[in-house]
């Protein structure tokens, strides 16, 4: 700095800011470009016993062949291997064990739970005389509050369980509907499964379907997607409370795994 009035010079800081800028923007673009699949999607496992039963009216002519094969295999299968004298001891043996276990467990648990709650309830009135008036009242109040809290917790747990059950039943409904619309490609084998991601809107319409985990067989994957698209919408979902819908069905993962394949 020979002259005070020389051209003002500033220290050159170029490399680090340039690198930092490029790194930051590359990161942002990468994050945006990466197709996010949110981790809070849940796979709702369908329950075998749905609350929502999909009933279809069947004419008797159609219904007849169905019940026919069911009773047939049982009498046909059982009598041939077993000789005639055996059926006699069977009815004798069977009724005996049945009544025995039934009365046995029933009286046993009944007396047990009854005394259990009683000692719990009894200590509550006991502390009342020991401390002074207000404390007894407070204790009673506390006990009531605790009971209310327990009640609320239990209710919340029950509600959660009910919600989960409801979700599971709807999930199994969706799965059933999809399986009905499914046409089996020739390459399908037993045990194949494909994980589908279905986007739904609250009216139950399918917005998009994509494969999350392929079964390894493209024809099978395509047939599963086609089945969902053929189903098109699940109007039953309209009955679902909105919160439940947002939680479980907005992005719904369906494990498509037909089990009734013969080979």
């Amino acid at each position: 700095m020979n002259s005070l009035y020389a051209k003002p010079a500033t220290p050159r800081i170029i490399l680090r800011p340039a690198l930092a800028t490029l790194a930051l923007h590359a990161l942002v673009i990468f994050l945006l470009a990466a197709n996010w699949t949110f981790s809070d999607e849940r796979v709702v496992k369908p329950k075998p016993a749905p609350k929502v039963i999909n009933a279809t009216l069947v004419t008797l002519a159609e219904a007849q062949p169905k019940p026919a094969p069911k009773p047939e295999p049982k009498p046909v299968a059982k009598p041939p291997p077993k000789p005639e004298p055996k059926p006699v001891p069977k009815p004798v043996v069977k009724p005996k064990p049945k009544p025995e276990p039934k009365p046995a467990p029933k009286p046993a648990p009944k007396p047990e739970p009854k005394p259990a709650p009683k000692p719990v309830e009894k200590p509550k009135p006991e502390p009342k005389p020991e401390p002074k008036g207000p404390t007894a009242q407070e204790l009673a109040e506390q006990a009531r509050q605790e009971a209310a809290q327990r009640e609320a917790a239990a209710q919340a747990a029950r509600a959660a369980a009910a919600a989960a059950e409801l979700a599971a039943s709807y999930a199994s409904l969706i799965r059933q509907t999809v399986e009905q619309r499914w046409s089996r490609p020739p390459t399908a084998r037993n045990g194949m499964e494909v994980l589908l991601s279905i986007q739904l809107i609250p009216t139950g319409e399918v917005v998009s379907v994509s494969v999350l985990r392929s079964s390894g067989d493209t024809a099978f994957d395509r047939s599963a997607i086609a089945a969902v698209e053929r189903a098109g919408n699940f109007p039953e979902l309209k009955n679902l409370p909105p919160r439940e819908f947002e939680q479980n069905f907005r992005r719904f993962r369906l494990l498509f795994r037909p089990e009734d394949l013969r080979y």
Partner: protein
Amino acid sequence: MEAQLSIVHLIMEAGVTVKLVMLTLLLASMASWYMIVQRFIYFRNSREDMYDFEERFWSGIDLSQLYREGNERADSGALIVGMESIFRAGFKEFSRLAKQSEMDSEAVIEGSRRAMRVAMLREEERLEKHLSFLASVGSTSPYIGLFGTVWGIMNSFRGLANATQATLATVAPGISEALIATAMGLFAAIPAVLAYNRFSNRMDNFLNRYDTFVDEFSSILYRQAYALRSRDRKAG
């Protein structure tokens, strides 16, 4: 099977105007980040330099010794900025004026103060470099983004006029793509505004410190100037 619309795909599909807007915003964002990081490093360096120099200055070192040390560094190519450059400007002017015996002490002090003032203005210039750019990115890029969005939505609705059956699916991609411009504008603007506020605040702090230093240093020079002149009077 239609996968979810990806953002990259949306950007590629956008119209020319919207693309231009996005490009402008991307450049603005990159430039403003470059300046943010650059200012950050510069401010950090000059704060450290300032503390180091203050410590040396008040350690009781001989001031002409300090000035000579600075000379050596300046000769070896180092750029002297910050508080030290103010000190050097003031000290240089003082020693030059003090040699002229016809100058009285007031005039000497006044001259060196003026030199320090000029050096301080230089420092201010250095500190606030790029800050105005950050301010304008912060204030205009939301508007630029908004322009892109309005343009994109305008177009997507105009396209809808020809369609006989209007569904949400025909407008939604256009609107979504147009809104990216606003998002980018905000992405550029928010850091710029935050950085501008922070840096202008820190710049004020620096200038306050420099101001204080100028006053302290000129009080030292006062003492020296009076001592010098009274010695001259006794001698002459």
